[in-house]
């Protein structure tokens, strides 16, 4: 679960890393499927970069989940205890 608070920017939380780990997809596989650089997946997962709306939709489509499962304005609840 990643978040970032930037100077004046809005915070977008995402669960890309969790979805990727759960489905045993490597960073490289995701990068190739999205046509972004390998390091960019890390930037996205850590929230250092936000995806464009189009890229966000493609990420959700790749994982076959609705957009709000991957991205949220509020912090995702922790799973488990």
């Amino acid at each position, binding site marked *: 679960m990643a978040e970032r608070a*930037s*100077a004046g920017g809005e915070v977008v939380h995402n669960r890309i890393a969790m979805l990727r780990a759960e489905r045993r997809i490597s960073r490289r596989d995701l990068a190739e499927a*999205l046509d972004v650089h390998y390091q960019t997946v890390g930037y996205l997962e850590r929230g*250092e970069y936000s995806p464009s709306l189009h890229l966000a939709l493609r990420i959700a*489509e790749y*994982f*076959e989940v609705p957009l709000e499962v991957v991205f949220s304005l509020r912090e995702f609840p922790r799973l488990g205890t």
Partner: protein
Amino acid sequence: MAETVIAVRDLRMRYGSRDVLDGVDLEVRRGEVITLLGPNGAGKTTTIEILEGFRERSGGDVRVLGEDPARASEEWRAGIGIVLQSWRDHRRWRVRELLAHLGEYYAPYGTAERPRPRDVDELIDRVGLTDSADQMLMRLSGGQRRRLDVAIGIVGRPELLFLDEPTAGFDPEARRDFHDLVHGLVDLEDTTVVLTTHDLAEAEKLADRILVLAGGRIVADGSADALTRQVRARAEVRWSRDGQRFVHAADDATAFVRSLFVQHGDEIADLEVRRASLEDTYMQLVHQHETGSSPDPGSGFARPADVAGTGGEATR
């Protein structure tokens, strides 16, 4: 059009029942730097050895400096410089001694245009071995040994220089020195260079033209830039707005950036457009070859096999 130095048509090499080279065509012009890329076992070294006259081919036409390397003269050989993958002999010779000795063989073939051999001390300085000139070869470090290999390759002031993985074992500074040396040979002495490497950054820096050898054929031929354009359409665009960083993968990066500015104007900062690297391109070319799929410039990088379990073509 510059003079053709190497002309190869339908080159074939068969070991037993296995075709290592299966119809290679290539042409190299004077003063060009050509890099031969390809996976291990693709036939790079075999190709170079045939061009050097060290290996009999199974079929095809080969012309190097106007002659067939399989039947070429000593004089022809004097015009060729070779840096092999590894040298381990002459352990007790000293650097200056060995270069002077090898250089003598070239003396009968010197011309006003190409005095042979080179001045040995100048050569030693040029490859950065001045401090080791009187060292025995067995005392040289791996990097120094490689510098000496390069010196041996150019002591006869060759018209055509073959380099087989020349910078394996070089640190970044030695690598930079070597690149400067090759540029000097090409720019100042009109040398033609054919090299193999696994270092794609090196291929990009040195080569006028890159040839990719896979499955016994040339599957791509062009500058690093041309190859990159050939396989990949999507580029990554990054920017920041209001302190937030964004990333997008665009089919048409220019159009996307234009629309970004129309929408946000002066708010856009830190704009970056990153196209596929030569490494991305190379991996895709080799992968296409291995899977037998035809080049599909629009397909980006998703491999159907890789995404099959995770939503198939959902990303397209």
